[in-house]
């Protein structure tokens, strides 16, 4: 039996397949470009392709057989085969078809009509294939995973993925679903500005009150953080999930297309023309970030038009967008009770912060030159990689984030009752009580919304569900308790129950604009030939983690209280432990679970003996205390 205790010291038992467990990458899944990085023992590597490019354009081309081409190659196909190529898909994550139409401007997306029974999630037609933004994002993630696996020569199954701080629940869920389709377990969704702050804090040792100004291709975030001694505490965050460099491209494209229409006397614009104009708009933007002026040519359907643009005109075109970012900065600071001058430094994130007028506006508002020591295109992936390492290997760093948007419920008259206000530190749980308003009411519709406005229809609808089975009571007698829970990923779970009858309903809030479990399974099945194996592997890993946990618990218990057992009892437990060890080494999930259960049963009597001993010891302690006080009292009397 002696060998039981010699197997491993508690806390030092090696996790099986530890090599796999530690390979977790950081991924910045961007609107325009994506980046994957890995950190090992504090050494960070941003993974590059053979041409030395770290940025993977977030562009996917679909071949007639449906296979996906991601990145630079797809970008090159954008002009020649615009209908088979999709870009800026991040803007559609977690959105319904109606939202997408209302996003405004000329969007280069071909939206499929919604079919009966499908979720409201938008579906696109790309080269004849019907695809959701989740599947397209999964293709980008798969390409990043491949790049990482190629570099590391090993399987990569875990990742920290960044999302804009201002992403709502539907957009976060969609991102997580995309990762799942790509065969990646998301260890944590980290907000992009928080990841950037982590990179600056850990790499550059920045401390104090910092603002992170993150203007990407399609999203804008600003976060205010206090950084001290390894704690990254987000105080407030704000932004616009549909504001970014894309809008600059659009502004130029619209300017060019108006000129073109005047030139050619055309009225309608083809989708191809819009895509070409956007592409040209982007080139003009990049060029005007360093040059004072330039000339561009639009060639579509053999019609050529020439367009001149100088920097002053360009800055005039984008001014409304730049002004909006500064206004949001001001709102975030004011709400947190700070002044621009309180901020010790402003970190620039996102390719769009390269535009000189953006930098000028930031410097002028905060009254200091912004920081861009770490490449604004890579800083988020660097932070994500650092966090991936911290989560797998362990670390003292602490990231404390907040909810970007208020979460609430629809009440009478289409009003919103806020349950969790924005900028509340997460994880958080809050409950609100409601009651019935009709005699004998047996069901209650619950509508969960996210946003700051007072009326329901001005906010984002996250989910609707019905709490049924309320026992008939007089109006106002029922106690309906609705609990909102936001986890460390910023994802919401809502539960509702009637207090007096103990009926309960629980929803993970994703239905409105997400994938149903059924759709998810079908996609998993379709997208991976070995989807089933993949699921099985994940379940196997989980069984191992759980069995390891049980073994560790028993080892600790034996070390503390092994004297309570007879020789036979020890041998019995030892025998079961050996079986668990053997099972963990194998690949039979059921065998592992059964062995762990048997171990649990074999230690039941031991557990009882330990509880008895604990209580006996405590009793002795209490009696002694009691005795001492009695004596003490006696003396003083």
């Amino acid at each position, binding site marked *: 039996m002696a060998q039981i205790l010699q197997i491993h010291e508690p806390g030092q038992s090696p996790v099986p397949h530890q090599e796999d467990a530690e390979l977790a990458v950081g991924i910045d899944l961007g609107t325009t470009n994506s980046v994957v990085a890995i950190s090992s023992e504090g050494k960070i590597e941003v993974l590059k392709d053979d041409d030395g490019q770290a940025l993977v354009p977030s562009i996917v081309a679909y071949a007639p057989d449906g296979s996906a081409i991601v990145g630079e190659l797809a970008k090159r196909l954008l002009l020649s085969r615009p209908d088979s190529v999709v870009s800026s898909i991040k803007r559609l994550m977690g959105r319904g078809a109606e939202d997408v139409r209302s996003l405004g401007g000329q969007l280069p997306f071909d939206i499929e009509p919604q079919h009966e029974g499908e979720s409201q999630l938008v579906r696109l037609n790309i080269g004849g294939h019907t695809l959701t933004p989740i599947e397209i994002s999964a293709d980008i993630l798969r390409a990043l995973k491949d790049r990482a696996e190629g570099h590391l020569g090993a399987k990569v199954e875990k990742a920290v993925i960044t999302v804009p701080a201002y992403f709502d629940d539907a957009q976060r869920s969609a991102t997580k679903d995309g990762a799942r389709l790509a065969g990646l377990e998301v*260890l944590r969704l980290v907000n992009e500005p928080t990841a950037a702050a982590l990179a600056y804090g850990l790499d550059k040792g920045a401390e104090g009150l910092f603002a992170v100004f993150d203007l990407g291709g399609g999203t804008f975030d600003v976060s205010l953080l206090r950084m001290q001694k390894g704690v990254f505490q987000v105080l407030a965050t704000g932004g616009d999930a549909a504001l970014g460099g894309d809008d600059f491209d659009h502004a130029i494209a619209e300017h060019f297309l108006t000129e073109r229409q005047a030139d050619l006397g055309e009225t309608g614009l083809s989708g191809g023309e819009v895509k070409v104009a956007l592409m040209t708009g982007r080139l003009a933007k990049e060029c005007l970030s360093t040059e004072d002026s330039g000339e561009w040519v639009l060639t579509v359907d053999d019609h050529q038009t020439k367009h001149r643009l100088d920097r002053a005109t360009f800055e005039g075109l984008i001014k409304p967008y730049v002004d909006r970012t500064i206004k949001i900065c001001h709102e975030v600071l004011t709400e947190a009770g700070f002044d621009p001058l309180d901020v010790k430094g402003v970190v620039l994130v996102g390719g769009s912060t390269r535009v000189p007028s953006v930098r000028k506006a930031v410097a002028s508002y905060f009254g200091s030159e912004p920081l861009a020591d770490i490449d604004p295109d890579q800083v988020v992936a660097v932070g994500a990689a650092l966090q991936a390492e911290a989560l797998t290997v362990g670390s003292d760093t602490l990231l404390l984030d907040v909810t970007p948007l208020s979460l609430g419920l629809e009440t009478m008259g289409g009003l919103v009752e806020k349950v969790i206000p924005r900028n509340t530190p997460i994880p958080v749980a809050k409950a609100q009580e409601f009651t019935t308003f009709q005699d004998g009411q047996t069901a209650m519709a619950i509508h969960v919304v996210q946003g700051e406005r007072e009326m329901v229809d001005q906010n984002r609808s996250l989910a609707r569900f019905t709490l049924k089975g309320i026992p008939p009571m007089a109006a106002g007698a029922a106690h309906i308790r609705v609990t909102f829970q936001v*986890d460390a990923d910023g994802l919401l779970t809502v539960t509702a129950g009637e207090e007096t009858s103990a009926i309960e309903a629980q929803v993970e809030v994703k239905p409105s604009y997400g994938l149903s479990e059924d759709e998810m399974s079908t996609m998993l099945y379709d997208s991976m030939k070995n989807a089933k194996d993949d699921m099985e592997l994940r379940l196997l890993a989980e069984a191992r983690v759980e069995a390891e946990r049980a073994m560790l618990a028993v080892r*600790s*218990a034996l070390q503390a209280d092994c004297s309570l057992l007879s020789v036979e009892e020890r041998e019995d437990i030892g025998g079961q432990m050996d079986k668990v060890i053997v099972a963990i080494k194998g690949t039979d999930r059921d065998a592992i679970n059964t062995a762990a259960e048997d171990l649990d049963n074999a230690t039941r009597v031991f557990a009882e003996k330990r509880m008895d001993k*604990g209580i006996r010891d405590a009793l002795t302690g*209490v009696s002694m205390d009691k005795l001492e006080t009695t004596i003490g009292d006696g003396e003083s009397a």
Partner: protein
Amino acid sequence: MNDVNTKTPQATLKSCWSCKGPTPVAALFCQTCKAVQAPAAVTHFVRLGVEQSFDVDVAGLGRLYFDLQRQLHPDRFATKAPKERALSQQQATALNDAYETLKDPLKRADYLVHILGVNVLPEGCNLVRDQSILIEAMEMREKLAMADTMDALNAIQRETKAEIDDVLTGLSLAFRGDDIEGACQLTTRLKYLDKMMGEVRQGRARLL
């Protein structure tokens, strides 16, 4: 020796969910197997390890909170078994609740009155017993409605800030003197002043 059981070991010990052995009910981690435990049903003060009082050193509170989050935050349990992840989330949630409540004077006062006067004043501090509080609030509101320049708003802000400082001093005295009724009234006043500050901020944002 008859009343040895007034503080029974059963009330101070529980069975660890993981190793099933005895561990103190308020322990964060099992004393034997070190598994994270569910948050104990204790006050926010006990949870963060500070004395129950209105006079809280907020910087010190922050340090205690960070130290506890360092041990209990879900990021420390990302690769652990689902049950441990769930418990860590519960612990971190309870810590956030405690810290958010105690670091803010208004929430702290509200909470203290609630736990101190739970039997005396079940209605908490929402009852305005003092007509003068209502009148003051109405006068402030009128002033705010008339303020249409930054200077006017800044003046109201300074005035409100000064009153808040007075109320906080009063609250500290009231709690120290066990004057729950007085603390209750001051808390109600603080709520109005706090709302006022919020409206001044909004007014400033509108003028910008």
